[in-house]
């Protein structure tokens, strides 16, 4: 059994190595398909990182009216914390807000002098709220903007950033959709080229197949090497793509991090290498074997 399998593998490799031009064409197309798959995987990683870092930076600030009593503020804080959508809520008093503002602008003389000229604290107390997910912010904003709270909450700061996140998510979805379409399109071309490669190999191996049939080779001993040729194309295409992806990730890493601050493409690629390898092998071998199977069923009568 194992000996038979080894011979099928060896024979598949021999077919791949012998028909250099058709194997080369199949390999080239498969490399393109797998490159797009790998690029899409990295794009998915970068866009998820970008969106989640934006989501992390999002919060809702409910500015408290100066007329609000401390009891009203405590009630508001308690009721906000009780909302299931809320992950965290932090009250910042007028004094703390001023302290943070001064600290943030300690090197800006003009602002510090302006504060001195005012002679009073112009900042409002606020309740900074983080939701459990970006989808919960509208519900929290709606709660804070309720007319019953208008005597406590003077202003809610959230909507502008929500729109940006929404647009970014839509843009990322659009790019992912286009890339998927391209993968399907390139995959179809890959199947077509691999199918023709197997067909040509079957044609050029017709004497061999005839001899195999007449000496009593089993069906899978005859068909196996052609399938194995598809596997070899998939495996080689995967290795070539991975070989090129490492320097490409290193080279493009700096450019990508200027678009997505904090995202290290090379690090992402290196830490996801096993998944990328499995994905590439799955797609590469899957397409290679699938197209070989169609060609065998159509052209290889045993």
């Amino acid at each position, binding site marked *: 059994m194992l000996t038979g399998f080894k011979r099928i593998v060896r024979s598949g490799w021999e077919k791949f190595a*012998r028909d250099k031009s058709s194997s080369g064409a199949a390999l080239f197309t498969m490399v393109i398909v797998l490159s797009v798959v790998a690029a899409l995987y990295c794009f998915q990683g970068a866009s998820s990182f970008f969106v989640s870092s934006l989501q992390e930076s999002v919060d809702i600030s409910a500015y408290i009216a100066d007329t609000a009593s401390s009891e009203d503020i405590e009630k508001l804080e308690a009721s906000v914390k009780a909302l299931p959508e809320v992950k965290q809520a932090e009250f910042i008093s007028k004094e703390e807000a001023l302290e943070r503002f001064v600290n943030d602008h300690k090197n800006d003389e003009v602002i510090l002098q302006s504060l001195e000229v005012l002679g009073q604290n112009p900042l409002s107390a606020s309740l900074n709220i983080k939701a459990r997910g970006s989808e919960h912010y509208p519900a929290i904003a709606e709660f804070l903007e309720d007319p019953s709270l208008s005597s406590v909450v003077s202003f809610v700061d959230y909507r502008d950033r929500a729109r940006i996140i929404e647009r970014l998510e839509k843009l990322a979805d659009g790019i992912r959709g286009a890339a998927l379409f391209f993968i399907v399109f390139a995959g179809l071309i890959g199947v077509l080229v691999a199918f023709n490669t197997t067909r040509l190999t079957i044609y050029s191996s017709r*004497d061999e197949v005839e*001899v195999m049939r007449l000496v009593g080779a089993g069906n899978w001993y005859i068909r196996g090497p052609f399938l194995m040729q598809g596997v070899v194309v998939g495996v080689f295409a995967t290795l070539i793509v991975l070989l090129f992806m490492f320097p490409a990730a290193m080279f493009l890493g700096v450019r990508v991090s200027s678009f997505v601050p904090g995202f290290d493409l090379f690090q992402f690629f290196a830490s996801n290498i096993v998944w990328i390898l499995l994905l590439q092998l799955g797609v590469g071998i899957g397409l290679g074997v699938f197209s070989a199977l169609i060609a065998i069923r159509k052209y290889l009568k045993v």
Partner: protein
Amino acid sequence: MILFKEVTKIYAPERPAVDNVSFGVEPGEFTSLVGKSGSGKTTLLKLFLREEFPTAGQVMFGEQNVHEIPDVRLPEFRRKVGMVFQDYKLLQYKTAYENVAYVMEVMGAKEEDIERDVMEVLDIVGLEDQAEQYPYQLSGGEKQRVAIARSLIHRPDIIIADEPTGNLDPYHTKDIVALLVKINELGTTVILATHNKDVINKLGKRVLTLEDGKLIRDEKRGRFML
């Protein structure tokens, strides 16, 4: 025993390729099929190997109707037969050794058995020194010897040789026929399809003569008479 019972094969209705042919071949017998090109020799061989199905009649191998063998058992049946072709059908990218070994590989033999048996059979056909030569490095006669070695390697019950001397000069023809006779003397049934008059006349073995798909003569020690 091989038995053809009233076998007919029709490709074109106006001219059957094989027309109601009946004969039997005993184990260990040397039988020649003679006839002009298109007389039905190759079709008969293809019918026996189940490459073709008869329009009427039966082809038996022992108790088994060849055309009723299930597809999954067809390889097992074909392993009982060794084939020799006019154009040798050697794989050009394999050496003489590899061409012969290939049959045993297909049958799942172990490497050590392959090595022993291939050298033994190359020795029988007198090519033990040419084992590492590729087909393009061999003469026509040597290529046919490799083909015969390949047909012998799995110890078949029957060897079917379809015009094995068709591409050979008289010297090599004599050589190959002598080899087939030697194989037959070792107990293997040989069916030789040919239209070489000299070969048949010198053999002095059974001759079946075909004409336009019909079996017109069956002689124990026949001559080529067409």
